């Protein structure tokens, strides 16, 4: 009977075996790996030929092949890809307006005053009512009405596309770009995963076996817009970009803007990969084979169900969990006064100089600090802070209280009152793409790389780029206007 305890002689024996293995390794001609693979492949081929028969006709060119020839062709691959994504964004934007308005009027216009009165009549002190109803409830109500409709439309479409088998074709189209940038072709897959969730995308880089290329993939994954950032893109594009053109073009133009930001994200991924692979992460590009799976008719109902449960509800739940405490914090910071001004006003005032310089504003930067745990709560945070700073007492019932906004137009007029311009909106969309990943993703990067340094680089690189890009855009914008 052998025991697991390592006695001196068993250790000596082990070392002896290892030494011998090493000796042999040096004597084996050629590549050991290849010898083994060859033996396995030839046996697999022999077994397969004994078991598989193909009666009747040899395979005719299948539908799969024909579709692939078009969607992965040099000429049509990219245009089809962009059009398909733009179409999804357009459906999302034009489809979510009405339900968003309905939810807002239900949760904010009707339920909120009732809760407020209820809290007063039960005899809650003003501060408790403030934290619970004006802070936590309103932040959550906003999260639900702003985020639920676009997610309930976008995620099922995205999942259907995934189920059908289109995403690997996107990866195929992008593959040679990634190789040119000095990254692993498989990174095109992990980037696709990042479009859902960056933390998942970072974990997915485990399929890349070279540590150098894996690090590149991890650090640049954040440039893929994640679930939590889509709603910000959709809302801001609708309010500020779509409104620049006549109404019947608005949907298309906003969809185009979101497509542009997503494509820009791919651009930044490639650019950073290129820069990293020429500086801190130099090395050879490894090759791999990418399998294009057969197209499968998506199982519509099952897909709808799982995408609603796994994605929409998951993201919404996460948003609510983070919005509750954030709402309380925002309300408190708006209502605790130090030296005449509230804490929030101090913070916004302190951030304003830097923020306005790069074409954003203090509210946005503060919102991005509050929203480090989850990008999902950016929009509600911005709205609450804006009400408070602009002192829009006429629309609300006091500083830090959210107010009755029954349409997107009201949101826009509020933001405009807060000093927002088209530049602010454009830069917010860019900053939403280019800033530090959420804390979950940063932690995942730390766990996957086992290094605080790489995690810090992965957090600071996009943040630095965000400031740089918004600064440049602001300069150019101001120069021309």
């Amino acid at each position: 009977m052998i025991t697991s305890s390592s006695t001196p002689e068993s250790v000596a024996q082990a070392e002896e075996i290892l030494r011998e293995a090493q000796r042999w390794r040096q004597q084996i001609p050629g590549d050991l790996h290849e010898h083994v693979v060859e033996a396995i492949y030839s046996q697999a081929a022999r077994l397969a030929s004994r078991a598989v028969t193909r009666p009747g006709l040899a395979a005719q060119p299948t539908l799969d092949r024909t579709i692939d020839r078009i969607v992965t062709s040099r000429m049509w691959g990219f245009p089809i890809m962009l059009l398909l994504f733009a179409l999804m964004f357009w459906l999302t934007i034009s489809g979510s307006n009405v339900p968003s308005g309905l939810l807002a009027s239900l949760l904010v216009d009707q339920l909120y005053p009732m809760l407020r009165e209820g809290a007063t009549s039960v005899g809650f002190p003003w501060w408790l009512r403030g934290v619970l109803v004006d802070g936590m409830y309103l932040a959550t109500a906003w999260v639900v009405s702003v985020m639920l409709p676009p997610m309930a439309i976008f995620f099922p479409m995205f999942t259907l596309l995934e189920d059908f088998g289109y995403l690997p074709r996107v990866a195929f189209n992008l593959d040679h770009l990634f190789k040119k940038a000095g990254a692993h072709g498989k990174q095109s897959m992990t980037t696709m995963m990042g479009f859902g969730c960056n933390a998942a995308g970072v974990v997915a880089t485990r399929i890349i076996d070279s540590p150098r290329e894996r690090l590149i993939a991890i650090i640049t994954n954040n440039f893929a817009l994640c679930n939590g950032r889509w709603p910000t893109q959709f809302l801001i594009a609708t309010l500020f970009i779509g409104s620049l053109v006549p109404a019947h073009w608005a949907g298309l133009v906003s969809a185009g803007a979101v497509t542009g930001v997503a494509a820009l994200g791919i651009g930044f991924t490639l650019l950073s990969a290129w820069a990293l692979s020429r500086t801190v992460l130099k090395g050879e590009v490894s090759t791999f084979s990418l399998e294009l799976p057969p197209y499968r008719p998506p199982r519509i109902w099952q897909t709808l169900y799982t995408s609603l449960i796994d994605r929409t509800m998951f993201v919404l739940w996460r948003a609510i969990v983070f919005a509750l405490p954030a709402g309380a914090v925002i309300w408190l910071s708006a209502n605790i006064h130090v030296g005449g001004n509230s804490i929030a006003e101090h913070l916004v005032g302190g951030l304003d100089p830097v923020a306005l310089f790069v074409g954003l504003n203090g509210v946005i930067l503060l919102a991005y600090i509050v929203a480090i745990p989850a990008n999902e709560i950016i929009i509600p945070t911005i709205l609450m802070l804006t009400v408070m700073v602009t002192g829009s007492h006429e629309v609300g019932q006091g500083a830090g209280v959210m107010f009755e906004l029954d349409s997107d137009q009201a949101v826009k007029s509020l933001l405009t009152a807060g000093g927002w311009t088209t530049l602010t909106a454009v830069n917010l969309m860019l900053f939403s793409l280019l800033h530090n990943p959420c804390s979950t993703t940063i932690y995942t990067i730390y766990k996957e790389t086992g290094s605080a340094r790489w995690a810090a680089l992965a957090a600071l690189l996009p943040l630095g780029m965000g400031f740089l890009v918004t600064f440049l855009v602001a300069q150019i914008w101001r120069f021309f206007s």
Partner: protein
Amino acid sequence: MNTPATTTLPAHETCASCSVYRAANLKKLGVNMARWDYVVALAGNPNTGKSTVFNALTGLRQHTGNWPGKTVMRAEGGFDYDGKRFKMVDLPGTYSLLSTSLDEQIARDFILFGQPDVTIVVADATRLERNLNLVLQVLEITDRAVVCLNLMDEARRHGLQVDERQLARDLGVPVVPTAARRGEGLPELLQTIRDVATGKTVCRPQRLEQEPPALQPALASLLARLKAAYPNLPNARWVAMRLLAGDDHLAKALRSGELGTLTNHAQLAPVATS
């Protein structure tokens, strides 16, 4: 024969030996596994429907996608079949077990060190040759394997006929044709898993017929040493091959004595009454 405890009507007792009845007897346990009788590992190429099989048996809703590389972590779940509790571990989908990438390492280490009672290799019936590469590698590591020949519906659609009996004879392990998306073949798969886990079905996997000629002297010499040191090692040739390839994990396991604890299942596992 085990008769299910829930049986109330006498008519059911006569059904109890029928495989269709057993499938109805499947209790999906999700992730709520406090204790288990057997551990089942699920390996396979990417995009062969591994996660679909996993979900069908455990009742979990691991996200599946038409998307190679969906599962890079080990997902675990469980099911209760015929009165026995099975813990199922979904390994990352890989094309081989030879490279240094983390996903292949996770799969390789679990099959070797986790010593699952059964390893299911899900293979794509429409791409049998390439999938067999992985099957053969798994069979080098473990005896107790079941090949789940999935996507049979697609194979039929493409006009392919796969002779699973021939394949089972050649491989020396059970081969179960399935179309997991439609639930076809899952009752048979469950039964086969049970039979292999309990030892009712004994696998005699056919391992590589031809060792790579360039490696023969090295393998022979290492193999002799390994067998002398660890007479119970069930997969000495594979271990020798990995040592030649310079696998750090195996070297570490050898130094720590962990390798010595790996023994042939068939010699140790209690033979379950069935």
